[in-house]
Each structure stands twice: as structure tokens, then as C-alpha cells.
């Protein structure tokens, strides 16, 4: 299995591409940092006992008034910024991946059914996708989180914010998947091996999931990378507007927002560091997506 991968064209072109290697390294680093946040971070930003309001808005350690224990300074509530960023990174990645997982699940099922079954099923499902796409997701998100906060109260909202954001962002963009999958299923289902599978006497479900779907997944892989970046951005945007993660459990977007109010009073670091990290995360994912698209594009395939 590993040897097969080592000899593959995918790995070969990865080795040739410096941008891809660098992006992959940075992405891995960020993923590790995010997932190991509770281990690495010097403080626990979710623990109110570790927070001292007297430490609020301390600049980074190398600046004049900085303290050595708060390497990147502290935010307005006196939390260590480094720890908070690590935990925020974790949340951003979690929400991004979760939302894309939900999008992919919904989109692939709908796209596969629409593309393979065709006819009325196709028409109904794709019109649903069109309708969904015609709603601005911010509007839907504002509605849902407003209703949610009223129904469950702010306290419960803090606990349920992560799954809620995953659902909101996931529901907002599944049509992207559905359309892509449908398009490649339409191409695949005319091929002879599908006909052969029908001649063999396989049932429709087996043909759809075992024969057509795996052959249509190339496009899904490519859009998945870009959709993860999009979902992270969406989450940041929602949090920035105050509709995302609460300030007690800030994601990168929520941190940027909380620092934004103090940027003109000189506390630039609260916004800058999470902002840089967010840009870096989205950038490397997009670069990897670009590389993957080039590699998997059969028109450019030379190996």
C-alpha cells in the first residue's frame, strides 16, 4: 500500500513541486498545533481561574512592556494570546472540516442520485440546489443563530455553537458538491463499464456507489480542499460579525473581531497574530488545492 503510493504519479509530482511541499509542511504544522493545543498551549484560555484581568492587553514579550510568560501578549480579558490562538485554530479547523464533511455527504448523495437516476429526480434535486444557492448564507446564518440564541439562551448557545456552525456552513454550500458530482456522474454513467455492470446483473445501488461514485471522486477531492478553505473563511466571517463563536471560546475569526475594537488604541497584536494565522491557513490549503487540481486534471496528465 505504502509502496504503491511511493511509486505513484501523485507522489512523484508532489516531490517535484516546491510550493506543494512547503504548503503541505505548513498545513501539517498548523494541524498538529491545532489538534495538540491542550498539550502545547502554556495556559488554558477556557479556564476562568487562570485568567487575571490585571494582565489584559499586555504587548508581546519582545516589546517594551511585555512579560516573558505571555509570549505573544494577552488579549483584552487577560488571556495568553498564544494559547488562545492555538485553541482558536483548533476550533477553526474543526468547524472547517466538519462543515466540509457535511457538505460532501449531502452534496455527493444528492449529486449521485440526480446524475445517475436523471429525469424527475434530477430536476427536483437540482432545483433544490439552485434555490439553496440563491439564499445568501449570511442571511440564513443570521436567522438561525438569532432564533437559536432566543430559544436556547446564551448559555446553551456557547456549548452548541460548534455543531451549529458546522450545520449552518455545511448546509450553505452543499450545492457546490452536488453540481460537481452530478456533472462527473453524467460523464461516467455513459461509459461501458457501467453498462457492463448492468449486464452482469448488479443492482442500481451497487452500481451507483461501487462503480460510478469512486470514478467520480477526482473532482470531489479537488473542490474539497478549496471548500475547507472557504468554510474556514465563512466561519471567520460569521464570528467577525458576532454570529459565530462566542468570545469565551473564540475561534480565529472571533479573536480578530475582539482585537479589532482595540486596534486603534494600540493593541495591534490581538488582531494581527490570529489574522496572519488565518491567512496562512487558508493560503496553504488553496495552494495545495491548486496543485491537486493540476495533478488530477487528465488533460495535463503526462505520466
Amino acid at each position: 500500500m505504502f509502496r504503491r503510493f511511493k511509486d505513484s504519479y501523485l507522489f512523484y509530482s508532489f516531490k517535484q513541486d516546491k510550493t506543494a511541499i512547503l504548503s503541505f509542511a505548513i498545513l501539517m504544522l498548523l494541524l498538529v498545533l491545532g489538534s495538540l493545543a491542550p498539550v502545547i498551549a502554556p495556559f488554558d484560555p477556557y479556564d476562568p481561574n487562570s485568567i487575571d484581568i490585571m494582565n489584559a492587553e499586555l504587548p508581546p514579550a519582545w516589546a517594551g512592556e511585555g512579560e516573558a510568560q505571555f509570549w505573544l501578549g494577552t488579549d483584552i480579558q487577560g488571556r495568553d494570546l498564544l494559547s488562545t490562538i492555538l485553541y482558536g485554530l483548533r476550533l477553526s479547523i474543526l468547524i472547517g472540516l466538519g462543515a466540509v464533511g457535511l457538505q460532501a455527504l449531502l452534496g455527493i448523495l444528492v449529486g449521485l442520485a440526480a446524475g445517475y437516476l436523471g429525469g424527475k429526480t434530477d430536476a427536483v434535486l437540482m432545483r433544490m440546489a439552485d434555490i439553496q444557492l440563491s439564499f445568501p448564507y449570511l442571511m440564513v446564518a443570521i436567522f438561525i443563530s438569532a432564533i437559536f440564541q432566543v430559544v436556547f439562551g446564551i448559555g446553551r448557545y456557547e456549548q452548541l455553537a460548534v455543531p451549529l456552525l458546522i450545520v449552518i456552513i455545511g448546509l450553505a454550500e452543499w450545492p457546490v458538491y452536488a453540481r460537481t458530482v452530478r456533472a462527473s456522474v453524467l460523464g461516467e454513467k455513459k461509459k461501458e463499464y457501467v453498462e457492463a455492470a448492468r449486464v452482469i446483473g448488479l443492482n442500481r445501488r451497487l452500481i451507483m456507489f461501487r462503480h460510478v461514485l469512486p470514478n467520480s471522486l477526482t473532482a470531489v477531492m479537488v473542490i474539497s480542499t478549496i471548500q475547507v478553505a472557504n468554510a474556514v473563511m465563512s466561519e471567520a466571517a460569521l464570528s467577525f460579525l458576532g454570529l459565530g463563536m462566542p468570545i469565551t471560546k473564540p475561534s480565529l475569526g472571533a479573536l480578530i473581531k475582539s482585537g479589532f475594537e482595540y486596534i486603534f488604541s494600540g493593541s495591534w497584536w490581538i488582531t494581527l497574530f490570529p489574522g496572519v494565522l488565518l491567512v496562512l491557513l487558508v493560503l496553504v490549503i488553496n495552494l495545495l488545492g491548486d496543485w491537486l487540481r493540476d495533478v488530477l486534471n487528465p488533460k495535463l496528465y503526462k505520466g
Partner: protein
Amino acid sequence: MSHLLEVKNLNVKFALRFGELTAIDGVSFTLDKGEKLGLVGESGAGKSVTGFAIINLISKPGYIADGQVLFDGQQLTTLDEDALRRIRGDRISMIFQDPMMTLNPVLTVGAQMIETLKAHQRLTNRQAREIALETLQKVRIPSPEKRLNQYPHEFSGGMRQRIVIAIALITNPALIIADEPTTALDVTIQAEIMDLLQALCASEKMGLILITHDLGVVSQVTEKIAVMYAGKIVESGPTVDIITTPRHPYTQGLINALPGSRQPGETLSQIPGMMPTLTDIPPGCAFHPRCNFKTLVCEMEVPLLMSRFDRARSVACHIKDN
């Protein structure tokens, strides 16, 4: 006496925007157990559609308008989808023209063979694997154990066609429909594959319908031939008779076009003109614009397929004494 397969007056139509199009028009033939039938004709004559119609797998906008397909006494044209699925791939298998396209590129050949078996029989994975191994040996694939775990792109064209044949054979079908099984292969591999098919038909007592435009292949393999032209059978009978004494002008033209009797450098004889497209089949005998013997009646009346000369031969032609 009951036949393995009996096709009676089969009509297949395609509902298109500008009207209905008859792709198969009143095709009838029979096939007994272990018998080999060649279905011969130009591209577009309706050979492949006949093959698909037998297993009732005509895709839209086509449909079977009329006629019967009796397989082992069972009427296939009116059977429901579930029952048909149990017959397809189990009792009747099909082999396609291009082995590059008929295997799924993302599954190992073993997985595809096992999948076929498990679609029709209750087996454990290990049992299915055993049968897959045996079948690979039957189609003479070297080191089958290793081959089972390989993907289609790791096989050569001839090997892939063997795999396709193995998948068709794996359930011990009573009938195999081979749709131009050697067209995509080179001549030496062609001979090997045909030998293999012939040997397997003999040893497994399978019926074979060989769909091809290659009279050479048909004459070596089959016992009966049906010649199709523009959706109709124009001549049928035992292979030897058809090859040696073709009666229909079209069959005569086909056999004259074979390079066999020619000297190098000589031009091959050919049938003038093209087969009409199904949208504008000429009135009367569909072949008359290209026929050297045509008379007035050929342009007016459709000739019927009638047995002539002896009971095994049938010809659809107005000219009595050819």
C-alpha cells in the same frame, strides 16, 4: 422440442423527437443448448441492439415494441426488473467489444469477479475467491493468484478480454452473447480468444451468439449464421451452406468482399453504396438501391424471410432462382 433461446418477431423501436425509428424489424431465430450462432452485418444493421434486446436492456429512448424472447421457456420481454437482474450475468452473460472500457478502472479484477458472483449466489468471500481463481485458470491466465489483486490497467488488451470472458463465465451461464469480442484486438490475439471461447462453449455446453462483421471469424466458430441488414434478417442457415452458396445478393456481396480468393494487388470487390440510415429506409426491399439484380417488384414490396431450398435455409429476396 424446446429451444434454449427463441426470439420471435422481435421489434425494437426508438422514440425520437422527429418520430419513431424501427431499429429491429421482425427478427426471429432460435438457439439450442451448446449451439453457436453468428449474427453478421454491417455497422448499424441492428446486431448489437438485438443482443441488448435479448436481455431486455435497451436504454431509453429505445424500447421493445413487439415480439417475444423465450429463454428456457421464460418470456424475458415482459419480466420485471428484479427477475431480469437475476438472469442477467447469471444465466445469460454478455461480452463487449472493447475490453479497455468494460472493466471498472478503480476496482481490482478480483473484486469485479467476486462482485458478479455475489450478485447471484450466496457465497462467502473465500468461496467466491476460489471460484474466481478457478475461472481465471479456465481462461488460461498465468499466475492467477497474483492477477486477482491487480487493476485493469495492469493487463494487456488480450488479457483484459480474457478477464471479461472470465467474468462472463464465472456464473456458468447457459448463454453467452459476445458482441464483437475480438474487434479491438490484433489478429493473433483474436485467434486465441476465439479458440478459447469455442473450447469453453464445448466444455461447458454453453450457447453462444457471436455478433460480428467479420465473416472469417464467424465461419470458423459458428454452426448457424443469420445475416442482418437494416434491422432485418435477410438470410439465415447453416454456416457451411451460407459461406459456400450464399443466396441473398447482400450475403453474396459480403462473401465476395473477403480478400481470400484474390491475388495480391487486385482490388477487392465491394458492395456499392452505403447501408441506409434507419431514418430513411427505402420502400420495398431495403437492399434494392445497392442490388445488382433488382427488379421492379424489389422497389415496391418488402420481401419476406421464407425458407427456401431446404428447411434450414431462409432468404428474404424476390429473386427466386439465385
